[in-house]
């Protein structure tokens, strides 16, 4: 392989953001027709490196050679001209435009939009690579999987020779991920090189020929996939052996029901039905995980349970008492601890740590309309210490890392000894250390006797923590597993929805 001329060479790439070195003298070469995995934890610098290759970031040092020629990539347009395609993690499509318009955008082939010619050339690209998406459909009406196809088509329409995919399976069911991999192998046959960013070892093993491992902005390993193993890769990636969170198997789940959700119905922001009668319960001392592909109603469920959205029907009962929905304060009073889906929506970045730790219980610090700054500060200092938050009481929250921001939310929430904890994507974007911390805290809550509802797109996380697993698909709970009989395959099938009914019956019987 080494005699082949690489299609892309990145040499000595350095990218600094202030004091942080996001890419530290990184070398990367991509060979023709290879699928190359870029492996690393969150924050290792994978996406930064690829954004440099796509012209979104300018490197501080180093150079890029494409097809044997030095290339200066000042913008995505320049990268596209050099045959680079990029499918970002959160797709970059214009929802109000059609599939065809999104695909030709910027490469319309003339000053006027010739709709017929546009659709013909999109259809031609589709046929060449064996894709099928309706070119006239509005992107906002497409499923996540279809949108991903449009993104790939967009890159192919621009004649890309190197296709970068950033965590492409994060939004897919295991089955859809497998079909994506088929597509990628097919593209490889058609002489494309593929770079796949991931932090999942199985994916590296399943799809790639070579893998480059990044840690803290540095390349810490480059191996042929055939000559490595998941444990070796894990070691390279994390730099230490991962501690597996262990569950206390003696723990007894209480027969008492902490949370009952009955017949919740809701629409998403576009008015499309998102929850179609969701019913379940969580016992005290139990972790219930909700697995599902993003966009199947999890966000609406979380928003309702956070008090941020009024459902169209259904009820929520906490320790036997119905709760007023659509009012965050009512949930707070009912001692529901809430960890929001997006932590930036649970923390006001421009307020300081003290305010963020006390605002939810501000009544306790108010005397006749005036704030008791002293006791606010004392609380903040106590929680900062207890939850090991790396910050001072008067630091602005936005200056904190994601992990420390999440700790603010945990400290604020869990110090109230909630009877129910709603944990939505609690470790999204966190590094291994912070993830372990969050997992440990959630298990502590369960052992203390709280009912924990875990909503996560990370199936591994659900499998590790849950006593019981529910699968959500198109706004309905379509299956239930106990921790003992859950398998990734069975859950994955339900997440895909295709054989929903049959699986449910089997799982429940």
């Amino acid at each position, binding site marked *: 392989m080494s005699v082949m001329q690489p299609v892309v060479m990145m040499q000595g790439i350095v*990218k600094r*953001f202030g004091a942080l070195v996001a890419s530290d003298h990184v070398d990367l070469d991509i060979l023709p027709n290879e699928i190359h995995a870029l492996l690393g934890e969150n924050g290792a610098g994978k996406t*930064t490196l690829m*954004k440099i290759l*796509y012209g*979104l*970031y*300018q490197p501080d040092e180093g150079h890029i050679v494409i097809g044997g020629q030095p290339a200066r990539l000042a*913008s*995505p*347009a320049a990268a*596209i001209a050099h045959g680079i395609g*990029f499918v*970002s993690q959160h*797709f*970059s*499509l*214009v*929802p*109000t*435009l059609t599939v065809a*318009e*999104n695909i*030709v*955008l*910027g*490469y*319309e082939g*003339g*000053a*006027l*939009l010739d709709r017929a010619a546009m659709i013909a050339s999109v259809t031609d690209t589709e046929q060449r690579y064996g894709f099928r998406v309706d070119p006239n459909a509005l992107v906002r009406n497409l499923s996540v999987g279809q949108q991903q196809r449009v993104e790939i088509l*967009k890159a192919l329409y*621009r004649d890309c020779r190197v296709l970068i995919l950033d965590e492409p399976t994060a939004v897919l069911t295991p089955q859809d991920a497998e079909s994506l991999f088929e597509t990628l192998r097919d593209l490889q046959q058609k002489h494309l090189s593929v770079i796949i960013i991931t932090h999942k070892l199985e994916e590296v093993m399943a799809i790639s020929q070579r893998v480059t491992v990044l840690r803290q902005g540095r390349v810490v390993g480059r191996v042929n996939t055939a000559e490595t193993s998941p444990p070796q890769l894990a070691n390279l990636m994390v730099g230490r052996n991962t501690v597996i969170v262990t569950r206390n198997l003696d723990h007894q789940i209480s027969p008492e029901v902490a949370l009952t959700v009955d017949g919740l119905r809701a629409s998403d922001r576009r008015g499309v039905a998102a929850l179609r009668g969701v019913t379940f319960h969580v016992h005290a001392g139990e972790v219930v995980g909700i697995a599902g592909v993003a966009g199947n109603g999890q966000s609406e469920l979380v928003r309702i349970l956070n008090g941020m959205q009024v459902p169209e029907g259904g009820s929520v009962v906490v320790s036997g008492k119905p709760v007023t929905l659509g009012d965050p304060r009512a949930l707070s009073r009912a001692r529901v601890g809430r960890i929001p889906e997006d932590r930036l929506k649970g923390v006001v970045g421009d307020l300081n740590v003290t305010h963020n730790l006390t605002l939810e219980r501000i009544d306790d610090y108010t005397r006749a309309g005036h704030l008791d700054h002293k006791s606010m500060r004392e609380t903040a200092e106590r929680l900062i210490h207890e939850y090991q938050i790396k910050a001072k009481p008067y630091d602005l929250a936005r200056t904190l890392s994601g992990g420390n921001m999440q700790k603010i939310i945990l400290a604020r929430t869990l110090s109230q000894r909630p009877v129910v904890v709603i944990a939505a994507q609690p470790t999204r974007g966190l590094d291994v250390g912070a993830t372990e911390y969050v997992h440990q805290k959630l298990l502590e809550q369960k052992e203390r006797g709280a009912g924990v509802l875990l909503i996560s797109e990370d199936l591994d996380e659900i499998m590790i923590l849950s006593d019981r697993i529910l699968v959500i698909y198109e706004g309905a709970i379509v299956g239930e597993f106990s921790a003992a009989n859950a398998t990734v395959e069975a859950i994955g099938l339900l997440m895909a929805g295709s054989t929903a009914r049959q699986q449910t019956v089997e799982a429940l019987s």
Partner: protein
Amino acid sequence: MIDLDFIAALIGATLRISTPILLAGLGETIVERAGVLNLGIEGTMLLSAFTGFVAAQLSGSLYVGLLAAVVTGVLLSLLMGLLSVSLGLNQHVAGLGITLLASGLALFAFRLLYGGASTPPSLDDSFQQIPILTGTPLEPIFSQYGLTYLALLLVPIVAWMIRRTAFGLRLRAVGENPEAADMAGINVYRTRYVALILGGALMGLGGAFLSLAQLGAFSHGIVNGRGWVAIAIVIFGNWQPMKVLAGALLFGGLQALQLRLQAEGLDLPYEALLALPYILTIVALAIAGRNASYPAALLKPYRREG
């Protein structure tokens, strides 16, 4: 009292009064579709009306005046671009700042050049109305300034540009999702700047219409809130040129009606009719409410992180 002549004259006046608002409104539509709210419109119209007037007077050519007004509109829009697109400042404040600056400049220069003249200076020779269909009862309708015909012609042209040209596609993409446009290889900044330039040129024409055609003179209050009305009709018109035309005609019609009724000797507080379009816009906003189809990226500066 209400006969065909009356109605024809009313329609004619409506078209005339609508023209500056329509021109500016079309300009604002283009800019807002690209994701920029240009509150500099009021000051831009005033300064353009002024520079157009001065250039026409100095050169003796109305067309030089038009050119000067357009250049003024473009320059102020470039300033708006520098502040809101390149530097990413709050569009509200940047736009208001430009309106205050441009108004100050116009009135400052006006005072320097014309002193404290008690009667506003006027052009000896301003744009004349071009009658077509002369001799028919429709003559009062089709006896308009060239700029009015141009403004009406621009409505379908702008609509077509937004819907049917590559630039229009990019415009919409940049106004809805600039990140996606950037990733697709479009230069977001350049697209927004081009939109601002086109919009500024139209705002400049709107201002020039007032000083070079409709009034043939310049005075302090020549724009008198027409820029704000243009902002209102863009929202009222849901960012679609044809509906913006409807908004402009509604405004022009109410004002024409007020002038007519006053001429007929009917005494009613003309301020009420002047205020009506503003109130109607607010009512329209209230009805559209959350369903108003704002360009999704309106007011949001775009910048890459690195």
